[in-house]
């Protein structure tokens, strides 16, 4: 009998737990440890943040589902890792602290045979002084509660604009090394469209601020893509959209301090600048959770497990951008020291960024960290689950399921406005996510045709269809596994 502990019930943790449970006989135990009581479909937070979707529509409680499906569930947060056990506990374990109910504050040693660390990112607001969701007129849409607050703030501003107030809206990244530009991009287009719907567009100046060197970088070094019968660069496509929507942009900006209505930033020229706003949504930097790890003798072995995020089968040798290779990226998400520990989704430490690293004249690094969107998070979680299932069934280590981000496609269906007949979406797919310059030397490391962009109403329907399909899948309704990650 094996016990698999999954840390985190976000996209990757939940995908891993549900596949493990479906394919493993009941004598094996699957336990999810996560501080959140609800599953949330994060991509739809964008619509919560413009008041077009209630947050209840994007979440459901985990406990009843896990009970029905015989998945153990502890509403707790992992604190530290003991991959060799300790003097009193033979088995490897994770020390977790309950965050809810009668056990709140209590710690428990949760032993495991296999551990999946799917704890995603820490939303590191503290890395930017004054960047606090709901304070200083800055908001976030990274969780449904943040998105609810963002809508309250935006709604209040729209009301003031209806009374004649001219407003400045600033959306983008709130740190020099932030990622998730795609989410901010969706939000700016949705906010802009909402202003039109509320007939106050002419009262607002809408500005994109980002650590990207060029528009459309999205933390993926931009891309060359097919657009209709043309081939264009992603920055040309996004520039076209922004100009058409009268959205201004500030690039190469490392936001380093927020005061009430003022965003201070350094640009690649090394200049300190500031931008005034009445409403801002700035994505914070993402970091690891600061977990500690200890060996049997309780000596600190954190560096064997973590490099910010969790160490997996990537090539972490530092090297210049020109020498980066697609082979640096992990394939099985297995920790090289403790082979029964895996980290899919955002929880794994990437070998390096995907975008070209850039420094300001003062030496400040200003460039996007690599994104790991929902699709690769789901795919990597499923392949980790499949390898564990095979290993248990075969009685020996099996790592036949592989999925490098350099050999995987991803779709980013960015909402550009909500409405069954008036909505819009920018659909972009990239193949592969991490450019492979050996395979596709002439097309910036990506396969044209499989890397394409589309704009229009169909994109909105697609995003809505994905919302329903993925919530159906997450609820593990009949034949849920037929829906791909």
């Amino acid at each position, binding site marked *: 009998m094996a016990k698999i502990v999954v840390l985190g019930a976000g996209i990757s943790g939940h995908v891993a737990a549900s596949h493990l449970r479906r394919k493993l006989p009941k004598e094996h135990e699957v336990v999810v440890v996560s501080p959140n009581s609800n599953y949330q479909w994060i991509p739809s937070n964008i619509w919560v943040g413009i008041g077009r979707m209630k947050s209840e529509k994007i979440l459901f409680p985990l406990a009843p589902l896990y009970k029905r499906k015989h998945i153990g569930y502890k509403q707790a947060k992992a604190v530290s890792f003991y991959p060799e056990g300790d003097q009193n506990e033979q088995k490897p374990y994770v020390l977790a602290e309950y965050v809810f109910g009668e056990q709140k504050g209590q710690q428990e040693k949760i032993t495991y045979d296999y551990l999946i660390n799917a704890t995603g990112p820490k939303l590191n607001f503290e890395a930017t002084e004054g960047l606090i969701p709901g304070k200083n007129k800055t908001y976030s849409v990274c969780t449904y509660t943040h998105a609810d607050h963002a809508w309250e703030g935006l709604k209040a501003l729209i009301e003031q604009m209806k009374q004649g107030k001219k407003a400045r809206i600033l959306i983008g990244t709130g740190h020099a090394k932030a990622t998730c530009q795609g989410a901010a991009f969706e939000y700016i287009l949705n906010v802009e469209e909402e202003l039109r719907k509320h007939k106050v567009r002419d009262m607002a100046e809408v500005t994109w601020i980002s650590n990207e060197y060029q528009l459309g970088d999205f933390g993926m070094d931009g891309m060359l893509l097919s657009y209709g019968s043309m081939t264009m660069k992603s920055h040309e496509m996004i520039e076209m959209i922004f100009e058409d929507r009268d959205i201004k942009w500030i690039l190469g900006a490392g936001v380093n301090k927020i005061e009430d209505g003022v965003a201070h930033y350094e640009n690649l020229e090394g200049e300190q600048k500031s931008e005034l706003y009445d409403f801002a949504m700035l994505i914070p930097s993402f970091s690891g959770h600061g977990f500690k790890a200890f060996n049997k003798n309780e000596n600190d072995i954190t560096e064997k497990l973590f490099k910010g995020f969790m160490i997996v089968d990537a090539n972490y040798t530092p090297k210049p951008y020109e020498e980066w290779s697609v082979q640096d990226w992990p394939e099985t998400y297995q920790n090289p020291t403790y082979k029964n520990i895996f980290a899919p989704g955002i929880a794994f430490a990437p070998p390096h960024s995907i975008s070209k690293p850039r420094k300001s004249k003062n030496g400040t690094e200003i460039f996007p960290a690599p994104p790991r969107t929902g699709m690769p998070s789901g795919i990597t979680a499923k392949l980790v689950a499949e390898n564990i299932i095979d290993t248990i069934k075969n009685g020996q280590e099996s790592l036949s399921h592989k999925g490098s981000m350099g050999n995987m496609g991803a*779709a980013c269906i960015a909402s550009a406005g909500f409405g069954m007949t008036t909505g819009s979406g920018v659909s972009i797919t990239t193949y592969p996510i991490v450019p492979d310059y050996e395979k596709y030397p002439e097309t910036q490391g990506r396969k044209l045709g499989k890397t394409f962009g589309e704009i229009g*109403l169909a994109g909105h329907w697609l995003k809505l269809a994905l919302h329903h399909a993925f919530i159906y899948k997450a609820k593990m309704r009949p034949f849920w596994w037929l829906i*791909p990650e």
Partner: protein
Amino acid sequence: MTQRISKYQRFKMMNPIIQFFKFIYLSIKIMVIVAGGHGGTRKIN
């Protein structure tokens, strides 16, 4: 504001009938790209 998307392009982007077919086309295309498999990139000796 600079009109970068022409009226005709916009009409095509927002016409529900054209977009219905685009929706079917995009769904299949995305499915093929994303669900079309993934794997490693390293050569096995």
